[in-house]
C-alpha cells in the first residue's frame, strides 16, 4: 500500500526549477527521513504533501488521491504537521494547543479533553502541564507539545519539519524516542525532514538524500552508509567520525 506518491512533481520559482522532477513512493507504515544540506529542497518536498505548496507540474497523491483535488485546509486537518520551530500558539494553553485540530474539526469538549490527556501521557509530560502557557515550557517540552498537537486528531500521516533543530543531544534523543513510539503506537506513516543524519540513521527505516532539488540517494540506513557519492559521504561523515571516536574510547 502506498501512502504518498510523487509523480514527476516539480516546483518552479522565478523561472528556476527548485524541486524535481521527482518520483517517489512512500509505503504505508514507513518511517522515512529526508536528509540533505540546507536549500536541497527537503522542506519543499514535505510541503507538497499537505499542499502548503502546490506542484507546478506533475502530481502528488496521498492515499491514492491527488492532493490538488480537494480543499487544502481540509486536507491539512487530516495530516499531522509539526512546524519547523514548533510554532505553538503563544496565547493558548498547552491543552488548547494540543486540542487545536479537534477544535477545527468540531469535536466535543469531553472527547478533546480525553485525547489531550492521553497525548500528554504518551509524550511523558505531566498532566498539570495542560493549563500552562507555551512561554513557560522548555525547548524539549515545547517540541513534545508540538508533536502532540500534530497527532491530536489521529492522522495516519505525520510530517515533521526539522523536529530536532535547536535541541540539546539528550532532549533530541528523548524526542526521537517519542516519535518512534508514536509512529508504532498510532500506526503512522512518518516523513521527517532533517539536515542531520545521526538520528535518521538510527531510527528511520529508509533515508532519502536530496541535493539541489533532486533525490541523489534512497535506501536503508546501511545502504546510505555505504553510498560513495560525495553529497552522501559529506552527510554521513560527521556521525561516522563520532561513532569511531566512541568505539575507540570503549576499547
Amino acid at each position, binding site marked *: 500500500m502506498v501512502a504518498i506518491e510523487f509523480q514527476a512533481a516539480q516546483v518552479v520559482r522565478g523561472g528556476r526549477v527548485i524541486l524535481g522532477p521527482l518520483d517517489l513512493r512512500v509505503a504505508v507504515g514507513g518511517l522515512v527521513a529526508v536528509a540533505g544540506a540546507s536549500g536541497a529542497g527537503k522542506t519543499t518536498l514535505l510541503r507538497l504533501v499537505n499542499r502548503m505548496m502546490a506542484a507546478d507540474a506533475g502530481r502528488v497523491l496521498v492515499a491514492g488521491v491527488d492532493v490538488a483535488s480537494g480543499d487544502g*485546509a481540509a486536507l491539512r486537518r487530516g495530516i499531522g*504537521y509539526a512546524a*519547523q520551530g514548533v*510554532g505553538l*500558539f*503563544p496565547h493558548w494553553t498547552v491543552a488548547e494547543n494540543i486540542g487545536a485540530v479537534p477544535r477545527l474539526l468540531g469535536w466535543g469538549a469531553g472527547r478533546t479533553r480525553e485525547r489531550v490527556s492521553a497525548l500528554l501521557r504518551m509524550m511523558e509530560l505531566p498532566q498539570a502541564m495542560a493549563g500552562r502557557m507555551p512561554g513557560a515550557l522548555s525547548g524539549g517540552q515545547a517540541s513534545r507539545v508540538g508533536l502532540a498537537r500534530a497527532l491530536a486528531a489521529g492522522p495516519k500521516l505525520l510530517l515533521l519539519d526539522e523536529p530536532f533543530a535547536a535541541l540539546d543531544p539528550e532532549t533530541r534523543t528523548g524526542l526521537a524516542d517519542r516519535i518512534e513510539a508514536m509512529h508504532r503506537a498510532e500506526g503512522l506513516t512518518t516523513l521527517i525532514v532533517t539536515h542531520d543524519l545521526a538520528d535518521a540513521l538510527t531510527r528511520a527505516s529508509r533515508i532519502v538524500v536530496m541535493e539541489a532539488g533532486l533525490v541523489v540517494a534512497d535506501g536503508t540506513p546501511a545502504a546510505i552508509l555505504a553510498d560513495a557519492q560525495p553529497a552522501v559521504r559529506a552527510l554521513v561523515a560527521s556521525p561516522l567520525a563520532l561513532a569511531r571516536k566512541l568505539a575507540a574510547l570503549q576499547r
Partner: protein
Amino acid sequence: MRAQFARALEMVPERLVAHLGLSVAAVAVAALVAAGLVLVMAAWPRVRGLVLGVVGVVQTIPALALLALFYPFLLAVSAVSERYLGVSVPALGFLPALLALALYALLPLVRGGADGLGSVPAATLDAADGIGMTRGQRLRLVELPLAAPIMMGGLRTAMVWTIGAATLATTVGQKSLGDLIFAGLQLQDWALVLVGCAAAAGLAIWVDAALGRIEAGLRGRRSGAVWLGVAALVALGVAVGGLSVGGLFLQGVGQASGAGSAASGRTETVSKPVVVGAKNFGEQYVLAALIAERLRGQGLEVEVRAGLGSAVAFKALAAGDVDIYVDYSGTLWGAALGRTAPAPRGEMLDVLRRELPARHGVNVAAALGFENAYALAMQRARARALGIKSLDDLARRAGALRLATDIEFQSREEWAALQRVYGLRFAGLESYTPVLMVRALTSGRADVITAFSSDGRIAADNLVLLEDTRGALPAYDALLLVGPKRPWLAARVAGLEGQIDVAMMREANWMVDRGEDKRTPEQAAAWLADKLAY
C-alpha cells in the same frame, strides 16, 4: 477671578459631551477604515509601503489646516450632491470635524494594525496553516489575538491625539472644549484657557489610562486588567452621558419657560436657530454677543458659533451655515472679491455693497461706524516730543527708530504699501505676539508698533495712531453681513448702521482684553447696547 472660573466651569459640561462624542465618533470611523486597510495590507503585503506612506503624509498636515481644508471640500461635495441628488451636505460643524479628525487618527491605527500583524512569529503562522486553519480562521484565532496588544497601543495613541486635536474643531464651528481655549486665548481670560485645557487633558489622561490598562491586560493575558480598563471607559461614558441627559433636561426646562413668550406671538416659527458667527478674536466675540442679544430681543432663537477661522467665516456665511457676522471691508476686498489693488474707503464700500450680493448672495446690512484697520502707533508723549503726527512725519525720522510688528504684518500687502508709498526705512525691525507688542513699546525696545485701530489698548496705554495722509493702508470698516438663507435679518439689524464709533468699540474691547476687572463678551456687549441710540 472666582467668577471667571465659575463661568468657565459652567461652559464645560455641554462641551465635554460634544468633545468626547466627536472624538469617539472620529476614532470609530478611522478604525473602520484602518481595519479595511490593514486587511488589504495583510492580503497584499506589497501595498503596505504605499498605504503607510499615504497615511503618513496625511499626518504631516497640521491638524488646524486639515480642518480648514475640509470646509471648502465639503462645500464642493454639497454643491455636487445638491445638484444631482437634491440633498445638501452640512459643511460646517460636526461633519468636517469628524472627517478631518478621523483622517488624522488613521496613522496610529493603521500602523498599529500593520505592526501588530507583523509581530506574529513566522513559525506560528506556519503552524496555523500546517494544522489546517483556513485564512479566516488563522486571522481570527491566531493573528488578531496576538496582534491585539499592539493594535490596542495604536488605538490608544489615536484616541489621545484625537481628544487633543478635537479642541481645534472650534475653528470649523463644532462645539468642543476648544471653545474655552480659543475664547480664553483671544480674551486673555486665563481661567477659560486653564479650564478648557484641564478638561481636555483630564479626558485624554482618563481614556489613556483606561486603554493602557486594557492594553497591558491583553499583553499579559490578564482579564482582570482588561475588565478594569473597560469599567473605567464605561464609567466615563455613563458620567458624560449623565451630563448630556442633564443638559437636555435643563434645556427642556428653559424651553418650557420660554413658551410663554411664544404664545404671545412675538416668536417667529423658524425650524433652526439663527446662527451668529464670530471669528477668533475679542471684538468679534463682543459684536456676536451684541447681535445675538438684539435678535433674541426680537423673539428669535439664536445660536452663536464663535472662534471660526478667518478663512472659514465668510465661506460659512455664503453657504448658509452662518446667518450673520461682522467682517471688515479690507478683508472682504481681497478674500471675497479677489481684488488686489486698494481703493479709497467710500469706493470700496460701494463696490462691496454692489458685488457681494451678486457674487455670493451676501448683503451688507450695516456699516457699524468704526474701522479695525492696521495702523502704526506710538506713545503719545514720545510722538509729541518728536513732532510726529502722520506717517509722513514718521518717514523723516524712521532711520533712527525701531518698529515692532505682529507676526504676520511683515508678509502682508500693507507693509509693502507703507514702504512703497512713504519710503519707510527703520533702524530696527522685530516681530512679537500682539500682547508683547505694547510691552515692547512701553519698555523702550521699540519706538513704533503696528496696531489695530479699534484695539482697546490704544486709549488705555495712551497711544496715538499716526495719520495715513496718503491713503496707503486700505480701509477696514466693520460691516454687518447677512447670508443668503435669511436675507430678512438685514432689516432686523439695519438700525446699527453707523451706531458704534471707534472710541466705543475700543472701550468695549478693553473691557474684555484687560487683565483686571475683566468683563465677559456678553457684559461688554450689554454695556455697548446701553450706549446705542436705538
